[in-house]
């Protein structure tokens, strides 16, 4: 029984606590993306939706709480505000654009 298992080509090396194990690693685990620290300057969409209105243009100086854009998702209008005092470095979308979740909308600096 073990001989057959040992020859299984699906086995790969999996390390836990400095110990190497020979085992099957499902794609859900092997496809895990390494965690990246979120960049607070990147304003991204939290849901798929539509850009209804842009309140700023590139170069504008904004204060914490200032309106950046109006976003429509799940049939609700949500205002996305500046999280801190910043300058609008780049606007990646235009009014009317339909965006998926996690799309970069505005870059601050």
């Amino acid at each position, binding site marked *: *029984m*073990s001989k057959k*298992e*040992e020859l*299984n080509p699906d*086995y790969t090396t*999996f390390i*836990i*606590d*400095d*110990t*190497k*194990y*020979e*085992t*099957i*690693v*499902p794609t859900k*685990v092997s496809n*895990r993306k390494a*965690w990246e620290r979120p960049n607070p300057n990147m304003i991204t969409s939290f*849901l*798929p939706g539509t850009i209804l209105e842009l309140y700023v243009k590139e170069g504008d100086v904004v204060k914490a709480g200032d309106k950046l854009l109006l976003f429509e*998702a*799940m*049939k609700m209008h949500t205002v996305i505000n500046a999280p801190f005092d910043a300058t609008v470095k780049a606007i990646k979308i235009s009014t009317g654009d*339909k965006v*998926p979740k996690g799309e970069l909308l505005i870059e601050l600096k």
Partner: protein
Amino acid sequence: MPLKKKILELKKRKEEVLQGGGPKAIAKQQAMGKMTARERILALLDESSFHEYDLFVEHSAREFGMDGKVLAGDGVVIGTGTIFGSPVAIFAQDFTVMGGSLGLMHARKITKIMDYAIKMRMPLIGINDSGGARIQEGVNSLAGYGEIFYRNTIASGVIPQISVILGPCAGGAVYSPALTDFVFVVDNISKMFITGPEVIKSVLGEEITQEELGGARVHCETTGNAHFFANSEAECFEQIKKLITFIPWNNSKKALRFEPKHPKAQYKIGDIVPDNPNKPYDVRDVIRAVVDDSDFFEIQEMWAQNIVIGFGRLNGDTIGFVANQPKVLAGVLDCDSSDKAARFIRFCDAFNIPIVTFEDLPGYLPGVDQEHQGVIRHGAKMLYAYSEATVPRITVILRKAYGGGYIAMNSRHLQADFVFAWPLAEIAVMGPEGAANIIFRKEIMEAENPDEMRKAKVEEYKEKFANPYVAASRGYVDTVVEPEETRKFLIHALEISLEKVVERPSRKHGIPPF
């Protein structure tokens, strides 16, 4: 009118109801590879054992074209019968009658049979095949669903509840299977989701088919919502019948006892687990080497494969098995596997089924995704489920038992009744490589040849701690047994545990980490 005429009238009325939605609708159902409601019940239950009730129930809706509409049995068939002689209550939605949609009387029929099942303390089987709420009946349909979910909850842990998804089961309706104990699905026929592809497309713009969103495979491999996967309805019914033989009729009985049988000779228990603790094997072979007739009935085979759960028999009695699977992810515990095991442990505890645990794991799966998914909360479910269970619980440590995993897998400290270990067992805080690196960090760093020193220290740790005797010296392990003795020790332990009594402080119920 004389009796003969009345009987003819009865037969005629029955004939009409048995037509369901009529020949055209039945043909459509068959074209989709689906059986009709009554065909399914008759295929599942013992021959001639089915008694149907509420055939003549009619809806009383008047709005939106319902007035004058004749719906046979209001779209659902209910009744009682037996499976291998065990009583069961059953309902099967009839997709040929207005898409099997649920209206007030349809729901009343279902809640009636549920009430019978609870009162008469027998297993409930629900065959779901419905387009959902009958919109024409408005909030009456919602009321119907609510009444069903309440009863699913009240019956939970009192009688076994089985859901069979043989068609669409969408929107609110899908909460009924979610509340039951076992969900059976069939490839290309079962569809379960809260919001369907059309709504998802219009609100979120995401495109996905019904099958990709909530087909049988998705629920068996990804969501963990289903427990058994079949390629055809016929195969599904065989699975249901087999499950029934393993479980009791209600929570005050034990499952039926079968003729004891020896495991099959082809499974040589001493040959299965490799000496090298880093090499994989299929733990199901160990289970098969131990259970009667090597007959292991696995549950949720396709999900969280790093842990194995299912039923087998020891000396004729049903036993629930939980086992780490070293051939997948080295048998680690993680969110999904903890959920899978914990719920099964609670089912066994509710229905007087002793639990045997086979342990071989290096710990929990590390990773930011696991932490952020709440492995803390999910992992705690296993600790809760084992600790709470009062059925006899026996653990056999096959090989590795490291750290938190050692505690979670029904250790002595969670009040396991018996803990046996194989001579191969390594019961330690972590593996020798990891441990040596931490404990002997200084020696290794300061050594002339760090690699040589590390190797020597790993060997030293292995010698001292990678064995079952340190744990045995404290009585944390009751005894060390040879693999060939395992079945004998398990059977004896279970025999003497028949009258087990546990005293606990009284409480309404605990608050498990959900």
